[in-house]
């Protein structure tokens, strides 16, 4: 192959230009902004102004706690559910496969605003269909929006509904790349279906599972729309406020860019740590 620097960069330039302007510069810029006091004009350099405030801010720790809580509960539940969906959708015994696929994959195309609105109505205290159904089987109504625990549960349910199918699509593709003869060999060796799942499917699927988990964690970490629209700006009383919402409030409601940038970099730090864990989990055995 010949080196063709000029030709290659002619094809790359538009893309790299967008990248430089809208990614490279902002990454540097938000790092610098996080060290500036931005509520005075002109902004001035004050290295401990935002970061100092961050480590003493109960609102930040509340948002961090909520985000991590959602992450620790919702991601494993959703990934497990997605694995179950993928494995069952892949079963040769399944009839009307297209219908089931439609049911689980359809939420992928639904916008955040549209489904947030539906969930608000469905979980309404007095007139929501969920509480009506609970009542019809003799259970007590749940006040999804005024108490913290049900509100958090609602956010997790909503996010799981929206993204489980998305992960199932990726996992299904991973399943279909496992050669059929591995299972045939195991069946001849009298390995039961359940054992096949734990000793063949899961290990072979591990890289894909880890990939899904990392994408989901990074997505959940930036969770914004659901607590913004479903639980009404992180309500009740900040009970569902996430880092994404805190960033929005600080950056775009209070126009406190410096502090918001510090929050953003905290999220980036978490993301980098999680990515490193992923690389470690999927490293090639020596």
């Amino acid at each position, binding site marked *: 192959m010949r080196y063709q620097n000029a030709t290659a960069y002619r094809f*790359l330039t538009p893309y790299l230009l967008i990248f430089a302007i809208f990614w490279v510069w*902002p990454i540097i810029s938000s790092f610098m902004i996080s060290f500036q006091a931005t509520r005075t004009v002109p902004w001035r350099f004050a290295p401990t102004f935002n970061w100092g405030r961050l480590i003493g801010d109960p609102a930040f720790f509340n948002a961090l706690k909520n985000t991590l809580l959602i992450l620790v509960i919702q991601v494993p539940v959703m990934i497990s559910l997605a694995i179950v969906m993928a494995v069952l959708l892949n079963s040769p015994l399944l009839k009307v496969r297209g219908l089931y696929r439609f049911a689980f*994959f359809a939420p992928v*195309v639904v916008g955040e605003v549209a489904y947030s*609105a539906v969930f608000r109505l469905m979980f309404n205290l007095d*007139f929501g269909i969920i509480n009506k159904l609970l009542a019809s089987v003799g259970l007590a109504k749940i006040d999804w929006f005024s108490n913290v625990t049900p509100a958090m549960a609602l956010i997790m349910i909503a996010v799981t509904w929206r993204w489980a199918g998305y992960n199932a699509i*990726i996992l299904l593709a991973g399943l279909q790349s496992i050669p059929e003869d591995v299972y045939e060999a195991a069946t001849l060796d009298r390995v039961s279906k359940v054992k096949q799942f734990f000793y063949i499917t899961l290990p072979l699927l591990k890289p894909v599972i880890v990939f899904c988990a990392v994408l989901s964690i990074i997505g959940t970490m930036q969770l914004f729309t659901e607590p913004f629209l479903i639980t009404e700006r992180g309500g009740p009383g900040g009970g569902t406020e996430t880092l994404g919402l805190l960033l929005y409030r600080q950056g775009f409601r209070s126009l406190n860019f410096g502090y918001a940038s510090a929050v953003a970099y905290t999220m980036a730090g978490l993301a980098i740590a999680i990515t490193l864990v992923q690389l470690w989990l999927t490293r090639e055995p020596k």
Partner: protein
Amino acid sequence: MSSLSQRRLGRSVLLHLFLTPLAVIWLFPLWMMVVFSTMPDNGIFSPGIELLPHGNFVDNFNNLQRDTNFVGAIGISVAVAVTYTFFSVLLTSMAGWALARYQFFGKGAVVAIILGTITLPYAVVLIPQFIMVARDFQLANTWVALIVPPLFNSLGVLFMRQAFSMMPHDLFDAARVEGVKEWRIFLFVALPLARPMLAALAIILFLASWNNYLWPLLINSQPGAMTAPVALGTLIGLTKVSWGGIMAGAVMLTVPMLVVFVLLQRHFIAGIAAGAVK
């Protein structure tokens, strides 16, 4: 009946017994969206259980249009999504082509950077992007603001690089020996051969733009410049608003995408699955 096929039948029944309720639960919110969109507000907020559509969709749509100029917002959304998809497909396939076809100085670094951004939270660039577009470029409430900043897309480039590297390179060398310029090889040989992959990419990008919420919420907040999700979002949480109208809007945002999904399921799934399976 042999015991083997009996066991298979048993397993099959069990499978459907488990999966069917799950599928019903998963379809339920979408079904309710349609049902709500056809009910008057006093029906939505009534004690009875209503699970079947009524006939009030048009009324609800009129209520929505009274609350906000939803038709105008849909127009903006369509125009922006179409333009964005065109340019994004062009940019990402050009970059993917360069990475698949040429040896050049700095290639390793470019690939490493693209991979690195996959796991970087968008939040990190959000604030400076906003300051730059709104304050420095004075482009708030324009289509450019909605289209240009999201053009950077790392999974798309990796997807197209993969698509082009799987093609036999002899095809491109053959054209090159014939004196065909590289950009013409790209345009007339590589792109036509990549049609299925381009379709998958275009669908995913269109959907991303169509449903995008946070960036348009921040940058195009003026009533006449809002996209449809933003316009609809402003109504959620208002006290005097028609919920039937909001549901009609949700249906208008969702149902066309569901139709596209059903028609182009193969491309859709290929586009999403490509993220993980190399």
